[in-house]
């Protein structure tokens, strides 16, 4: 694409944002564009080396076209075009490469793909960026480098195919995300639906989100199916739906029926799952879910890899896997700050405590002439978790050298792991022009490096929102409930978006049932979603939330002090809002360069070598503080121990149904969803999601069978986090042993 076409696309995007968003798949240009979802932030490449892969579904019709790949981008002014490149790889085949020179005018890369490279099904598209600073050789300066790929115009284009004709459930994955990265699902429900109908609809939405590989679902509850482009889902009992005037789209026949219709109106797909009895309906809905057998999966290895890593590499138990499988590629690097990043997804019953270590067994090498403070740093969730010095002045090449990260640095759900190599050399300080152009390779990282996860303890430890958002725990069973205080469309849309995202991340539908019955919601584990006003103060305060201040700040929001787009409006521009990104930066979303000189105060030494604080002793802990939501927050998530036994209550509240629905669509973006953790989190439109409180007092919910091995790890973890319990138990055991020894010794052998 030439620059003026890109510019036109940008203008079109700004002007027709609403319609463009509504018509998710249709492209004004007349060819289907399958964008890179699910989050524009994923299209931002920072630092000297950065890359990302996406699994993109291609239908058989699309695969037969002469597909092209469009990438439009802008970059920071500090990027030196002469030594910075953006390259594209499809299914592990290098396809295109261009220098990065789009600081003033947007740049673009438009390449036709070789025939046969794309196959029907999922394909792996990878963008890799290598950037160098124009004038500054320091490591700190590398944080100024960025390239932003335009989410609107970038993607796979299939000329001649205006929209993917979707005939099968698998092809649902061909629906392109819109500019903001979301895929809109319109679920059809009559006005004032009953709980069972809503339940079926929710399950169907979840199943569709899973089957269509939708990472960022934006669900709207609608009353009818219109003749416009979009994905519609209609599910429920035949009788009920027909009664409410939706029989038109349900085919003839009886018993369970599952159908996909995508021919009548261009760009519109309708998924219908109905049955005559509740069981048949449930079976039909289950039919939407993908088949899981290994033989049935036919992706090529690169595509399988992209799919495996889209929610973070799933780690169920102990494993040992080369980083190649996590999307890391062998790379020779000539800059100062190398990064290899990947995500791992730990189960909801992962118990994070200091009872074992996760190991990165690194195979890498570094050249001679590096400064002695060169090191490899491992960051987990933006905190430094392990390091390895690179001190040999003559350089070194090593295999399988371990760097350990304590399991207490991890959390259930998605963990961002970054292997960072700091490789400053002697010439960086002077930074002469010749040195800037120097392409000498300083560091090499091999994809055969391994991630070794030890056997970890499986037990639910709550409250921890990360567990709930990443795996639905503890709402997978049908005995748990989802309580929505009202049946208006906005609230139900918010509920559906939340559930669809949860299902998508965890890979299976949520078992909990929806209820509107306040009384029923008093027993068992309950997930409360709705506007603040519709919940009684006593309920909200049970979560430790400061109800009064929250209500006050949100009544201002409702009065319009804080102006925002209406529900269903253009939330899209905000997602690309550099303001949000700026705020994330400002709040330390990315780690700053380290201060290398060790501080020699007593306090620093204590923290470094001993590091025991009051909070480590269970008996000395303060009670939980009340949860105070910050000013700009529009969604508050909180979790607390339910009234009885192992019950867990989770609360998701917004200022009003409208704002809840609107902001939920931003919350489900991965960059926000994965940051929710602890006892309370908030979503702020400009700042994204942020955890505001980690639980001090936690409780356990057993999940798997408590085998001796698991129990031992759980006990070790518990006693690592509560030092006083360990000390007391060992002291008591020592006293008992001493007494028993004395008694035994006195009756054996000769006596005085």
């Amino acid at each position, binding site marked *: 694409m030439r620059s003026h076409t890109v510019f036109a696309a940008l203008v079109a995007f700004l002007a027709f944002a609403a319609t463009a968003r509504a018509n998710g798949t249709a492209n004004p240009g007349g060819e289907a564009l399958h964008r890179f979802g699910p989050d524009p932030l994923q299209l931002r490449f920072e630092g000297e080396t950065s890359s990302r892969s996406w699994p993109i579904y291609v239908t058989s019709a699309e695969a037969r076209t002469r597909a092209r790949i469009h990438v439009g981008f802008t970059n920071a002014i500090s990027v030196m075009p002469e030594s910075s490149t953006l390259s594209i790889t499809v299914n592990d085949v290098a396809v295109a490469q261009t220098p990065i020179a789009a600081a003033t005018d947007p740049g673009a890369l438009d390449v036709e793909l070789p025939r046969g490279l794309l196959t029907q099904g999922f394909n792996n598209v990878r963008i890799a960026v290598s950037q160098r600073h124009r004038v500054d050789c320091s490591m700190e300066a590398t944080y100024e480098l960025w390239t932003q790929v335009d989410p609107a115009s970038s993607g796979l284009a299939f000329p001649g195919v205006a929209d993917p004709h979707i005939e099968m459930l698998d092809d649902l994955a061909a629906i392109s995300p819109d500019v903001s990265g979301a895929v809109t699902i319109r679920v059809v429900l009559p006005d004032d639906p009953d709980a069972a109908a809503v339940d079926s609809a929710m399950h169907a939405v979840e199943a569709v989100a899973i089957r269509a590989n939708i990472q960022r679902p934006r669900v709207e509850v609608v009353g009818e199916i219109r003749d416009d482009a979009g994905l519609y889902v209609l599910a429920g009992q035949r009788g009920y739906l027909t009664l409410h005037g939706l029989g038109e789209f349900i085919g003839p026949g009886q018993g369970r029926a599952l159908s996909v219709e995508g021919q009548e109106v261009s760009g519109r797909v309708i998924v219908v799952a109905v049955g005559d009895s509740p069981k048949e309906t449930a079976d039909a809905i289950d039919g939407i879910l993908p088949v899981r057998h290994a033989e049935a999966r036919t992706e090529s290895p690169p595509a399988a890899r992209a799919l495996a890593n889209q929610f973070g590499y799933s780690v169920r138990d102990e494993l040992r896997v080369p980083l190649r499988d996590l999307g890391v590629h062998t790379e020779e690097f000539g800059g100062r700050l190398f990064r290899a990043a990947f995500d791992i997804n730990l189960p909801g019953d992962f118990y994070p405590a200091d009872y074992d270590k996760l190991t990165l067994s690194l195979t890498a090498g570094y050249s001679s002439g590096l400064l002695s403070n060169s090191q490899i740093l491992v960051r987990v969730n933006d905190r430094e978790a392990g390091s390895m010095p690179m001190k040999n002045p003559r350089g070194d090449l090593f295999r399988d050298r371990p760097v350990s990260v304590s399991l207490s640095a991890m959390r259930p759900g998605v963990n961002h792991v970054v292997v960072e190599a700091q490789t400053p050399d002697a010439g960086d300080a002077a930074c002469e022009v010749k040195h800037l152009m120097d392409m000498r390779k300083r560091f090499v990282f091999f994809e055969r490096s391994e991630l070794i996860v030890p056997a970890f303890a499986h037990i639910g430890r709550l409250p921890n929102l990360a567990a709930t958002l990443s795996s639905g725990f503890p709402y997978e069973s049908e005995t748990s409930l989802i309580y929505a205080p009202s049946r208006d469309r906005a609230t139900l849309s918010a509920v559906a978006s939340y559930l669809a995202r949860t299902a998508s991340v965890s890979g299976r539908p949520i078992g909990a049932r929806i209820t509107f019955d306040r009384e029923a919601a008093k027993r068992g584990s309950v997930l409360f979603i709705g506007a603040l006003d519709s919940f009684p103060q006593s309920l909200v305060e049970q979560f430790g939330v400061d109800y009064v201040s929250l209500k006050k700040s949100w009544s201002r929001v409702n009065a319009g002090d804080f102006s925002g787009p209406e529900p269903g409006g253009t939330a899209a521009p905000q997602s690309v809002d550099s303001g949000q990104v700026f705020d994330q930066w400002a709040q330390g979303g990315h780690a700053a360069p380290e201060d290398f000189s060790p501080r020699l105060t007593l306090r620093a030494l204590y923290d470094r070598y001993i*590091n025991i604080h009051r909070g480590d002793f269970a008996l000395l802990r303060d009670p939980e503080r009340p949860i105070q939501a910050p000013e700009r927050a529009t969604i508050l998530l909180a979790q607390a121990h339910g009234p009885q036994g192992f019950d867990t209550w989770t609360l998701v509240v917004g200022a009003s149904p409208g704002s809840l629905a609107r902001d939920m669509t931003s919350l489900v973006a991965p960059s926000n969803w994965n940051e929710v953790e602890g006892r309370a989190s908030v979503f702020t439109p400009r700042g994204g999601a942020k955890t505001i409180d980690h639980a001090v007092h936690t409780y356990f919910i057993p999940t798997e069978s408590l085998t001796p091995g698991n129990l031992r790890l759980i*006990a070790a973890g518990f006693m690592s986090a509560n030092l006083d319990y360990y000390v007391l138990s*060992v*002291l008591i055991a*020592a006293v*008992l*042993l001493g007494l028993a*020894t004395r008694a*035994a*010794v006195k009756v054996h052998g000769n006596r005085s």
Partner: protein
Amino acid sequence: MERSVKKALWLSCGLVFLILATEPVGIRSQFAIGVAALIGMSVIRALGLTGPWRQIFLALGTAVVIRYFFWRTVNTIPPLSDLWNFIPGVLLYMAELYSTVMLAISLFVVADPLDRKPPRKLAPEEMPTVDIYIPTYNEDPELLAMTVIAAIDMDYPKDKFTVWLLDDGGSDQKCNQDNLKKAKEAQERRVELTALAEELGAKYLTRAKNEHAKAGNMNNCFKQSDGELIAVFDADHVPVREFLQQTVGYFREDPRLFLCQTPHFFTNPDPLERNLETFQRMPSENEMFYGIIQKGLDKWNGAFFCGSAAVIRREALQLVGGFSGITITEDCETALDLHSRGWRSMYVDKPMISGLQPETFSSFIGQRSRWARGMFQIFLLKNPVLKRGLTLAQKICYLSNITYWFFSIFRLPFLVSPLLFIYFNMQIYIANAQEFISYTVLYMLANMMMQNYLYGKVRWALVSEVYEFMQTLYLAQGLFSVVLNPYKPTFNVTDKGNSLDKDHLSELSTPFFVLFGVYSVSMIVCVWRWFTERDANELLGVVAMWNLFNLLMSSAALGVIAERRTFRAPLDRPIDLAIGSSLISAKALDVSYGGCRVCVPADRMQQPVAVGAPAVVDVKLRAGHGAQSFPVVVSNTVTRGDVVEIGFAFGKLKRRHYQAIGDLMFGDAKEITAFRENRRRAHGILHGMGTFFAWSFTGPPRAFRLLWWEWKDRRAALKASEGGPGGGTVAEAPPVVALQPAPARAASA
């Protein structure tokens, strides 16, 4: 019933304890429990709590040790793929494993040291007949005389015991050997000792062939004597009068008793004690064994025969055909055989003999090397673990005695490991500084506290390390020779009674100079690396401290191999000296096997004294036994200010004379015990460390000064032999008479 219940209870408590101690908790929990345990142990120690608190103290310490060891095994050994570091890493680990296993075994052994009640007083007709064996090979007749006379004078019915002098130095084989000079010496010896025995009232016995050394010697007499009991004294072990009265009664109380062992007590310092000047204030090295360990062994019926100062039942020996002679530690071997047949032994912690330790460092090493090799022979040829008839407790006891000697091998990795890092940057112990503090340092503290708690009265902190350091190189060689030929390692007799008349370097000193040099250079390299390598390397700091410890150890070692002239504090015993025609009240300063030294105020000397003049010394015997005199001959005189010191050699001594000399030289049981107790004050770890530092600082200057003198001497001698004039300066010869202290020093008055 109750026993097995208590055993089961102990096992289950132990299991719970083990599970808790090996939980993989994080490092901060480790630090917390380590500190808590150490605090608990300190409180118990400071408050002096007794009873079950002893076992609780040890359990707390064990928790720290178990946690350390678990972490050490799982986390700190280099991976197998890194073979260059893996092999030394495993060797170092095995050395630590050894010390942990030894600690565990020792906790069992000294679980409850036994104190025995005195034996029943026997009626005269009940008293058994006793043969007293005094085996000898090359000891001087003067020395033997003391022992024999003391044995003869023991408080026991005269018709019920016989003293045998068993001479292997005057055997037929020796007298008829090819070397004419040696044969003549042997013949003279036989004649002299036969006369001595007759004079003193003992029986002299020798044999045709020198087979099986001491065991064979004693078996020869065994066949020709018939006393119900046998008491064995080494040639230099002078018994006190009440020895038999205090031991024989037990054999009537228990018909299955085969051994009653008493502690060895030494009146002279061993080389370390002498060269580091600790004899008066620090317990001797053997006191840990005789003071605590044998008492612990006794509880488990594992007290074993130590070759001397013991009484054995003939009937038991008969069953095993006499004293065992397969290994060169025939004493332990004999006890092993008898224990395995269900006989019982006992240990009575009353020091009732006064003996001599090897004086020079080389003879000390010779003695220890023999013990090490002999024990290792037992391990290979008569392994207690496999011996039927021993109880589990006895097997552990014997194993502890034997495996103690493996320290010589397992100490070597500790000496070498820091050098691997300093010079080759090999990392054989994978730990960062935080882990080092939370695991290793706390473990070392707990270990030291436990050792100090168990043995603090009889062994100061770090003294074990010094002894082991001195022995390790030589004993390791010895053990190796046993491996090569288990049946015939060379057996050299320790020579005792050697005198030291001037400061000089031990002939075995070279390796210690080398080690000192190596560690000094390494220390310099450490400092250089610290300042030149940009990042402050925590690992380097830790290794530097380890190397510093080795350096201090080798410095103290230099203090040991710089042999001091034997210097003993004066006796100050009042005597009457009849010389010429006058009778002078004087003071005996010193007495030994060859003679004595007397101090006379100058004004009381009416005539000058000529060398060779005869005199008589009259001594008031202790404990009101009257007075006794003995003849002496002047050998030298020295005037110091207003006193005259006269050195005397003994004249022709008769039996009664020996009594007086013995009275001057040796104390009775009470005095010995008092001297021993006076040294056994409980001192803390800091005190031990302070003394250790003192040795490290004083050692090298002395050693290097001696080295310098020897080098000068050698050069002068070289010049002299080349015909040049003027030899080197010879150090002034102090008085010729070799002097030994009497243990009465510590007794007030």
